[in-house]
């Protein structure tokens, strides 16, 4: 007990080097835990983005690609589905509900999605939560738009504000002849919906009625004239499907995948997400590897710090030897010192992590749509921290062995 107290006093006497070492360990631990928390937070956030949707249907491509563009608004569809096919699938007996979505246009960096009113009822997130309107309501007019919470916040839109949709995703050509009106603003969900402008499928059709192949063609048709036209959609990008019975999911998936008239792909969102993790997992492993290296570096720095201090502390060791401490006691005290240092580093690192999470959470949410939950340390994280503590004792063996040898050689006399 007294030896422990002396070890602490010895550390306090060298508080600058000791403090820097503790800080280095704390930073490395905070980095590791931060990566870990972001990783699990991102997974949860992704998994929470869509729920209660049994299948997503799109043109045939990769399942991850379909998931990314239809749910996460990342990347683009390679092809569309004809409206004929959509109606064909919709009429199948297994289908309880189906919501078409049409992507491809944008508004000031936010994606525009054509859909139906059913989207607001059927889209569910975070374990079955439904979308809610913070203000306004669903589409009442052809040129009504519903915007996500982030769109409203960043562009400072209110109900009734005009919106001009741009053709394509990064384009200077705008559908400025047919402006929209903000009819509804959705409550914050923490999903890509927050960053989406939703309009009706008919409106998507209407703004493209005088377009062909990405450019204006033929005489312009005014917004008033277009209301009189047949605005039944020609094609959609993807569709969200709910089945009547979970048992029918695979049968319907097979039917869609083998649909003879058009190459289609149906995916189970959860399965596609797993596939996505398979890909992202490599980057995750790399990140974890790098942060583990940072911890290793900090621990080696600590060992070097203890090691370089040994020469000045030979006097101290000689005193311990004179009062009857064996060389093994001196070696053990260095290991205890390292473990104490690391423990302080871990405690400070955990404090840094939670302060950092608390401070950075709103920014991460705003910038990446990633809402990191502040949760306690998991068993896995405790296990990692315990390993760090164990590793510190292990690397401390290097200076400890050196101290052992020095104290055997020096005995009570130090020739400095």
């Amino acid at each position, binding site marked *: 007990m*007294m*030896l422990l*107290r*002396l070890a602490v*006093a*010895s550390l*306090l*006497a060298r508080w600058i080097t000791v403090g820097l070492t503790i800080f280095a360990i704390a930073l490395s631990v905070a980095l590791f835990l931060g990566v870990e928390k972001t990783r699990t937070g991102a997974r949860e956030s992704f998994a929470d983005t869509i729920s209660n949707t049994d299948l997503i249907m799109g043109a045939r491509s990769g399942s991850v690609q379909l998931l990314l563009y239809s749910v996460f608004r990342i990347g683009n569809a390679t092809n569309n589905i004809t409206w004929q096919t959509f109606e064909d699938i919709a009429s199948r007996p297994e289908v309880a509900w189906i919501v078409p979505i049409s992507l491809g246009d944008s508004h000031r960096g936010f994606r525009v999605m054509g859909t139906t009113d059913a989207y607001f009822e059927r889209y569910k997130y975070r374990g079955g939560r439904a979308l809610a309107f913070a203000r306004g309501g669903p589409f009442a007019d052809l040129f009504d738009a519903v915007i996500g919470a982030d769109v409203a916040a960043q562009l400072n839109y209110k109900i009734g504000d005009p919106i001009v949709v741009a053709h394509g995703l990064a384009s200077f050509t705008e559908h400025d002849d047919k402006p929209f009106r903000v009819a509804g603003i959705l409550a914050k969900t923490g999903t890509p919906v927050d960053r989406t402008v939703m309009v009706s499928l008919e409106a998507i059709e209407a703004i493209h009625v005088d377009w062909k192949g990405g450019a204006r063609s033929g005489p312009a048709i005014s917004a008033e004239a277009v209301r009189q036209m047949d605005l039944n959609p020609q094609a959609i990008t993807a569709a969200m499907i709910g089945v009547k019975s979970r048992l029918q999911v695979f049968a319907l998936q097979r039917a869609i995948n083998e649909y003879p008239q058009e190459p289609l792909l149906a995916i189970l969102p959860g399965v596609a997400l797993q596939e996505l993790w398979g890909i992202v997992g490599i980057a995750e492993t790399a990140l974890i590897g790098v942060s583990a290296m940072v911890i290793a570096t900090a621990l080696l720095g600590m060992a070097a710090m203890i090691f370089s201090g040994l020469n000045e502390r030979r*006097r*101290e060791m*000689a*005193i*311990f*030897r*004179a*009062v*009857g*401490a*064996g*060389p*093994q*006691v001196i070696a053990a005290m260095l290991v205890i010192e390292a473990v104490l240092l690391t423990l302080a580093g871990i405690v400070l690192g955990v404090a840094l992590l939670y302060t950092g999470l608390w401070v950075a959470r709103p920014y991460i949410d705003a910038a990446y749509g990633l809402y990191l939950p502040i949760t306690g340390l998991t068993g896995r994280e405790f296990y990692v921290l315990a390993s760090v503590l164990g590793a510190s004792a292990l690397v401390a063996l290097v200076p400890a062995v050196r101290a052992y040898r020095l104290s055997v050689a020096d*005995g*009570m*006399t130090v020739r400095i």
Partner: protein
Amino acid sequence: MTDTAENRTALRLSAVSFAWRGKVPFRIEIPALDVPSGEKLVLLGESGSGKSTLLSLICGILSPDQGTISIAGHDLAAMRGRARDRFRAEQIGVIFQQFNLLPFATPLDNVLLPLQFARQRRARLTDPRAEAMRLCAQLGLAEGLIRHARAADLSVGQQQRVAVARALIGSPALIVADEPTSALDAAAQSAFLDLLFAQAGAAGSTLIMVTHDNRLADRFDRVLNLQDIAQITHQAAA
């Protein structure tokens, strides 16, 4: 400790030989040295006369190549490393020339330090802290200084007195002092010896002091010149 005749001899060296096998080979031989219990012995020797080696041998930090060293009847050579460390903790109090104390600890912790390694010495004390305070008071050290100051904040003279208290706590059989007065001025040296003798006498400890300063020699029971009892050979020269 059973044989009373052995009990009366605090330290006995016979036919001891030890060689350093370093870059500067060096051999010390001590045919015989007996120190009766309770004696105050001074060994005079210049630096390079084997003082440090002799002290390390007596304290069991070094083992002789030949011969026996026994303290209070116990042969050091018969003990293994860990047992020898424990034996040193129990039987010997050491006072260095200077830098005696752990600089980051309080003087009180410094005084109590040997008791961590010496169970019997601690068992002799009902209240180690009170005993440490008593010793320090006897050595003229203020209580506040002992409890709260850091050892590094003490003057050299104060540090040497704390070192005496540490050597004496729990009454070890033998006090070994390596030039404990060399860092003190003449007046302080004499006062320091007064305190050391008084406390060693009160504890019943044998005192062996090594010094190059023969001005203090006449205050001891016995004076020995190191070159009379030990032969040094530098094998490199031969």
